[in-house]
């Protein structure tokens, strides 16, 4: 019979202390980070490839070794012991320290890249320069702050992905999903665009294009410089432009219909990828209150309205008035946008009224705001005020949503608000996919009859702040537009109550009390009265 291992400090205390190996790997990881920090303070490393490799290797070994030291000797299963006792994961001192540090990093990255050593006139210095050798090897160009960030971002998803897989190794869904996220980040967001840049030359002027980053998440995809780049790159460029358009209108609806928005948000997307891997220790910090849900719906849908108007205005600004040069002129384009929106809105109001219930009002408000915006563009364009506004709209969006929301708040505040703040409150792509998921998808989380004991693990560990228990304890399926299908609710449920699945859309929403265990007459009575 094996004995309990006393590898923690005092017995009888919640295990908070780090053991020897955990400390060792923590130090190793911090040393790797220290190299990056020294580089940012302009310490000029003589052999850059060596020091960069050293830094990235020790960060990776630190994280992977740390994972081994916390999960390696444990049996498969849920690993949430002590989550709410640890300072870092329960709003303690370390959480604030860590949160402030990443926030500072993001502020510098977005707004003061020169402090990281970025220099577009002469050679890079500092941290960005440390990444020059790697950038030359991939794309043939010097590094930018975005290359440096992309490298660290992808590396985080890879090494924290390994940690995540170790933690959830009892679940094949989690393993496969995480491998997918790791693959799409490394290949699509990191390597392929760099190689594409390498191909660029006289005949090819492809913009940096992460193929999995779809409008409206990729809000700048249809800006003039990018369209010019695509159109000046022959067949490849045209194919990429067309791919960008059909990803929104064809690929996205089909995949969301079949699998729910999880195909994107927790299997492909880079923001989701970071949240699921590096952000996993903070998933339980999301706000579950009803008020948070209310704010979420207002904010995220306002972002959709904002991005739609902004993109329309930007495209409108570089199109011609004249149809003789090109069939797509300013007014054809506006009419086109208005028709698509009207079609979608009409279809929803006629065929999906039941499912929408009171949200229909909000949908209508959003629709009419956009339409009025389009009319305004049509009539008031030309006066200089409005011309100016397309650009103002774009820069405001890029600043508020693209930088502050998705970066500084989205990641910087991981230890405070949880890992999916951006995805939940800010991401227009998630909102569009969520709209489809809610109204037109086979995906749902099925609740298993009367087995729920209302324990609250599902709600606590939902990174999107969905009160899963509120549905499960009533025997209702969970059909929420915000659900990204990470599957953790089904992992932490101690009674086998939840199952993510794609099934026939009929009977997907079951708003009645269908709890099993009661005799049929009583349930009939309850359902009729309701």
């Amino acid at each position, binding site marked *: 019979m094996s004995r309990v291992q006393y590898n923690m400090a005092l017995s009888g205390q919640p295990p908070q202390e780090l053991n020897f190996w955990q400390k060792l790997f923590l130090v190793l990881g911090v040393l790797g980070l220290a190299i990056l920090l020294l580089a940012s303070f302009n310490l000029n490393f003589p052999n850059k490839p060596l020091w960069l490799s050293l830094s990235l290797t020790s960060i990776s070994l630190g994280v992977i070794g740390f994972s081994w030291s916390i999960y390696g000797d444990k049996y498969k299963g849920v690993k949430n012991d002590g989550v709410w006792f640890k300072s870092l994961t329960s709003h303690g001192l370390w959480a604030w320290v860590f949160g402030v540090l990443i926030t500072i990093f993001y502020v510098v990255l977005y707004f003061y890249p020169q402090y990281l050593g970025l220099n577009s006139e002469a050679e890079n210095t500092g941290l960005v320069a440390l990444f020059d050798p790697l950038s030359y090897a991939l794309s043939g160009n010097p590094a930018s702050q975005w290359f440096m960030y992309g490298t660290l971002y992808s590396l985080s998803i890879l090494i924290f992905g390994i940690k995540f897989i170790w933690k959830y190794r009892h679940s094949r869904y989690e393993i496969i999903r995480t491998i997918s996220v790791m693959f799409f980040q490394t290949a699509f967001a990191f390597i392929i665009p760099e190689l594409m840049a390498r191909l660029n030359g006289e005949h090819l002027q492809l913009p940096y294009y992460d193929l999995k980053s779809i409008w409206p998440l990729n809000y700048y995809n249809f800006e003039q410089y990018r369209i010019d780049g695509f159109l000046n790159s022959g067949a490849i460029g045209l194919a990429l432009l067309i791919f960008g358009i059909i990803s929104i209108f064809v690929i996205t609806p089909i995949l969301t219909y079949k699998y729910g928005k999880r195909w994107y948000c927790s299997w492909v997307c880079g923001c989701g990828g970071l949240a699921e891997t590096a952000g996993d220790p903070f998933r339980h910090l999301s706000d579950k209150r009803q008020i948070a849900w209310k704010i979420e719906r207002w904010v995220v849908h306002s972002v959709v309205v904002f991005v739609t108007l902004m993109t329309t205005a930007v495209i409108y600004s570089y199109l011609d008035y004249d149809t003789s040069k090109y069939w797509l002129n300013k007014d054809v384009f506006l009419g086109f946008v208005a028709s698509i929106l009207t079609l979608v809105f009409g279809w929803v109001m006629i065929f999906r009224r039941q499912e929408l219930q009171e949200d229909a009002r909000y949908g209508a408000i959003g629709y009419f705001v956009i339409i009025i915006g389009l009319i305004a563009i049509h009539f008031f364009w030309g006066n200089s005020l409005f011309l100016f506004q397309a650009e103002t709209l774009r820069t405001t969006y890029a600043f508020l949503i693209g930088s502050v929301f998705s970066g500084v708040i989205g990641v910087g505040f991981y230890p405070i608000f949880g890992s999916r703040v951006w995805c939940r409150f800010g991401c227009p792509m998630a909102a569009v996919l969520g709209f489809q998921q809610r109204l037109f998808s086979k995906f749902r989380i099925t609740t298993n009859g009367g087995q729920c004991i209302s324990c609250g693990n599902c709600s606590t560990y939902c990174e999107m702040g969905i009160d899963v228990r509120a549905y499960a304890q009533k025997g209702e399926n969970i059909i929420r537009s915000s659900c990204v299908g990470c599957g953790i609710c089904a992992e932490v449920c101690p009674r086998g109550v939840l*199952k993510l699945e794609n099934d026939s859309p009929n009977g997907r929403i079951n708003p009645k009390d269908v709890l099993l265990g009661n005799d049929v007459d*009583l349930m009939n009575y309850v359902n009729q*009265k309701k």
Partner: protein
Amino acid sequence: MSHVVIIGNGIAGITAARHIRKFSDNRITVISAENEYFFSRPALMYVYMGHMKFEHTQPYENSFWKKNRIELKQAYINIVDFKSKKLISAEGEEIVYDKLILATGSVTHFRGWKGQDLNGVQGLVAKQDLELLNNNSENLNHAVIVGGGLIGIELAEMLHTRNIEVTMLIRESHFWGSVLPIEEGKLISNHIEKRGINLVFETELAEIIPDSDNRVKSIKTTTGKHIDCQWVGIATGVKPNISFLKNTALETDLGILVNRNLATNIPDVYAIGDCAQQCEPIGHRKSVEAVWYTGRIMGETVAQTICGNPTAYNPSNWFNSAKFFDIEYQTYGWVFSKKKEGYSDFYWQDAKNERALHFQYETNSKKFIGINAFGIRLRHEIVDAWLTEKLPIEKVILQLQKANFDKEFSKKYLKKVQQAFQQSKFQKNLVDE
């Protein structure tokens, strides 16, 4: 509009309150001494283990109660005056009711051991027990748990997360012998032992020995063994919390005696949940059921009666679930812990992956009457339909896939189960011939 007073804010009492509000305009007061708000009792263990904070165990936001006009009162009721329909709290406050629902739940069943009142001896039922356990855990090196059942294994798992050595005294030859057949009892026993818990079988508690501070120093077992420990967990079951109702006109036995409409012998007084005892047996169910969902159903049922639609408590097929460290357990219908005349069974297990299914059926008619599942999730709706239809066991085995509720991409075992069943049938036929 009458005043409905509910004593107890557990799942039974709260469900009753919610449903009475759904169907009526009565004034509703829920009284509890344990905690202001309703919380999930089975979730207490996760608070101790650091998976959740206590507030996460509360299924409704604090504003819910006011919004739904359910008055919450924190008080301990000492005396019930059934004649003048009056409750008297420990502070001497009087509360008058028109209708009374007793949903007082359970307390730990101390069996009268010598030393059971020492410091460091406790059960785990109430929130206060959890707070006590948290205090008792400090400087605790070795804990003894008496009883191998659901509360026993919960305590073991909890203490294990704080690196406390745990020894469990188990009356039978395997874990939870009163409910689990020997096959799965052994499977779970092995699983627990592998996690480092010491299991001592066929042994009960004889007495608890104090130190000079009146704290637990050691225990003596019925086999005469002494075990040094600083804490003893009593997990030999719970009993209805009805001591404050003794010597009243209310008829009680183990619990408060109720008819099928959950009414007691006193008009306008009902009892639901763990504290109620059925006069008439319902199927194979026990007369006192201390289970989460039966409390819920009784709450729904009594609400109907109180709102003018007299309804009998009529639970359908038995089901339950639990988790033993990392093995999930679900049960539907009846799988008997000991072989029973007229019933046959089919057991399948994958010992390496710790998966098992145990089917019970009537020997002659071949009708399916129950299943235990370990490490495999089953769809309640489907299995419930099989039980209601009394499907023949062969058909159940054939349709197993329909009942699979495992997560997507999970390893599939059901084909193996079907093959094993065909094989066992073939062998049985040989024996019969």
